[in-house]
């Protein structure tokens, strides 16, 4: 447990990273819809074609190999679109997460219900910290000022709250992917 593949990647291993690469492109490069699918497809194909050249260069992690390819292809994609950077227009994260993070809105709604159920089992101070940071978008120091407690306490409450929440969620089969 906790061990990752350290040797040169095989074709199967590269194919198994498809979801990770998709998440990376969605999050880091803010690619959406067809753009995301195109860049993902191109990245996976390039990784599979060139994997025989990869020999664990300088003992680099296999993730370095994949990320290098994904970066190059994303850059090329933006050049083709005459865009040098990621888009600057504000994005509606939730709407654009559908199909990548959530299957659809029904899944998200269901998750919201389950999350409410799980969060209600947490102690009050955990709930307050989660609400301020994840719902209201406060930074830890702002949350500390709001709650009138030291920032260090907020960090530890946040850490404990997330651990307990994940533990509660993982016990529930409805939460498992």
């Amino acid at each position, binding site marked *: *447990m*906790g*061990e*990752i*593949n*350290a040797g040169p990647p095989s074709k199967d291993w590269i194919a198994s*990273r498809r*979801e*990770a*690469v998709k*998440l*990376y492109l969605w*999050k*880091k490069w803010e690619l959406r819809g067809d753009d995301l699918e195109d860049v993902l497809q191109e990245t996976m194909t390039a990784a599979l074609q060139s994997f025989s050249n990869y020999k664990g260069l300088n003992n680099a*992690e*296999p*993730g*370095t190999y*994949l*990320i290098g390819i994904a970066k190059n292809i994303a850059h090329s994609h933006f050049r083709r679109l005459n865009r040098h950077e990621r888009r600057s227009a504000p994005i509606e*994260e*939730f709407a654009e*997460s559908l199909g990548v*993070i*959530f299957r659809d809105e029904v899944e*998200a*709604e269901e*998750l*919201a219900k389950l*999350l*409410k159920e799980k*969060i*209600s*089992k*947490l*102690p*009050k101070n955990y*709930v307050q910290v*989660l*609400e301020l940071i*994840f*719902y*209201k*978008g406060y*930074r830890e120091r702002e949350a500390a000022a709001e709650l009138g407690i030291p920032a260090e306490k907020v*960090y530890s409450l*946040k*850490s404990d709250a*997330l*651990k*307990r*929440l*994940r*533990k*509660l*969620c993982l*016990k529930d089969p409805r939460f498992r*992917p």
Partner: protein
Amino acid sequence: MFCTYHNRLDYIADYVRGELADDEQEKFEIHYLACDECLDAVRFMEKTSLTMRHYGSRIFAAIPQTNWLDHLKNWWEELPLSQQWKTAIPALATYLLFVGIISAGYYWFNSGMKISQHPSHQDRSGGMVQDTSNGPLVEVQHFNWTQPAADITEPALLNRLAEIQPIYQAHDYQLAADRLTQVVQDFPQSLEARLFLGISQLHLKHSTAAVQNLEKALQIRPEYAPAQWYVTQGYLIQNRFVEARQQLAALMKQQDPHFRKSAEQCLKKLNKLNK
């Protein structure tokens, strides 16, 4: 190589929220592209974070306060025990608690019985078996008849009372009342016969006859505490609260502390009931 990130959910949450420095962010991305556990953790955090942000008003609205029982349940759920143990331990604890309660109850009941059967307990109140501080307003209690009074001079009366006394003591009030009725016919001035006939009739719920016999006993010996107490019981059964109060007032002046205390408690109950 071992993963050092997947248990650091706060770190992963910072990544999801874009709070990590660029170099740390890239380092973590290189890592999670190759690590299944971190990929799962990132997906969990991304889902949870997006859900809390988008549905926060619903999720955080009026979350009920967790009470000590919920905390206990959560604590129990989080204990690193197998599901079998988590089921077995509460079942065993419930069983032990049940056995404990039953044993304690049995012990208490037995020791209570022993105390009430102890002679000193029976005689402590001049023959009254139970204390009257608690319980209903009227609760006719057995009055111990230890032996016929020493001042009875007529041998025939003495013999007949000596025959009836064990019957009464065995709580056979019907037979005792039948025999005592005959004694009263033959010896109408027998205080003892009137008293125990009255008490037996109270037990048999013949309150009118009981009150008559107890009043006769009081005529024979006014201010005789047992007769005063039991005639009071008769009055209370018949809802004759004025007469009952008069007798209780008289009992409060008695020397016998037990009857005085019983009368006081009875008066308190009457006052409480506004009778």
